[in-house]
């Protein structure tokens, strides 16, 4: 988190984490499409030639001035594929909040678990932990046939009892709700830390 007191700007970083092809980029693209251009900058996607995220996707948006204070939100996704471990570590650095986009498909449970473990290991390497960070889970692809029940996903993935949302990111379902909850948790967390 960064506060520029001269400009009364507060800027937070939210990172979308999760396994490859779970829908992280789709979340960002939907948010970008929803926000009026006067409130947001460009979206940048560093992708391979077959459209997979190689480094990160990024966009920033801001709200109007709130009694002179201007909140800015920087949203990043990490590349989900296993071999981009270093990129994930770099992007995760300085995150104020995390959205974990899980793939609900039955045959992707292992990848979700591996990605969750990878997240915690990267946080530990920074002296942090999932338990200390604003954290929201999104169970994506709820429109597909071969998916696991939410109850089972909750049991397997949500051991922190974090807020969670069911989503169909390519139709925008659950995307905005996930982001709003994450921002709310981040702001509460910052307030707590500023007063500590």
């Amino acid at each position, binding site marked *: 988190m960064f506060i*520029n007191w001269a400009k009364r700007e507060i800027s937070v*970083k939210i990172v979308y984490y999760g396994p490859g092809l779970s829908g992280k980029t789709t979340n960002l693209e939907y948010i970008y499409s929803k926000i009026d251009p006067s409130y947001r900058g460009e979206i940048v996607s560093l992708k391979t030639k077959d459209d997979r995220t190689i480094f990160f996707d*990024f966009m920033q948006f801001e709200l109007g001035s709130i009694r002179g204070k201007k909140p800015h939100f*920087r949203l*990043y996704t990490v590349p989900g594929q296993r071999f981009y471990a270093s990129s994930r570590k770099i992007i995760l650095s*300085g995150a*104020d909040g995390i959205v974990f986009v899980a793939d609900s498909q039955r045959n992707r449970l292992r990848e979700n678990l591996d990605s969750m473990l990878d997240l915690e290991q990267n946080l530990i390497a920074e002296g942090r932990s999932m338990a200390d960070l604003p954290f929201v889970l999104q169970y994506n692809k709820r429109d597909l046939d071969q998916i696991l029940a939410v109850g089972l996903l909750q049991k397997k993935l949500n051991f922190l009892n974090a807020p969670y949302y069911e989503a169909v990111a390519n139709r925008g379902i659950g995307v905005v709700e996930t982001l*709003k909850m994450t921002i709310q948790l981040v*702001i509460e967390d910052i307030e707590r830390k500023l007063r500590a």
Partner: protein
Amino acid sequence: MIPMNERSGSQKMIILSEEQFLEISALITSLKGKLNSRLVIFGDMDGQLIAKNGEIPGLDVTVFTALTASDFSATKEMARMVGSQNEFKLHYHEGSHQHLYVAAVGTQFFLAVIFDPSVTLGMVRIFTKKTLEKIDKILETQPVEEAQITQMIDSEFKSFVKDDLNKILG
């Protein structure tokens, strides 16, 4: 050295005071003038744009800052992987019409200068180095008053954020 006001243990929370911002902005303006550069950016390694002077039509400076910071971090990681003990302190990209010079300020910040080929790299290095040293000194001092920091977020702020998010995201 603890640059600016860092709080909350391992989670980064950086607070730039009004004086720090104004002094850094003045240094960046002066550097831009000396090098006749098109754009000078001061950002943090997590991709946050802090101050800038100049502009390039069509360039989204926020995105550019995020990319520059990630580029720096990626190179640092590459250095670590090949066993380099020293972090890379600067980057230089030579283009046909514009060059980009990026230098680290401590471990947390960087300064990026976009300049045209009529300016020699030596000049850029000398003036940038002097500016970096001055910025480093500014970052060591002038913490924000505790009372001011806690004013940043209150219940009214939280409720306005909620309303504004509903407005722009539906």
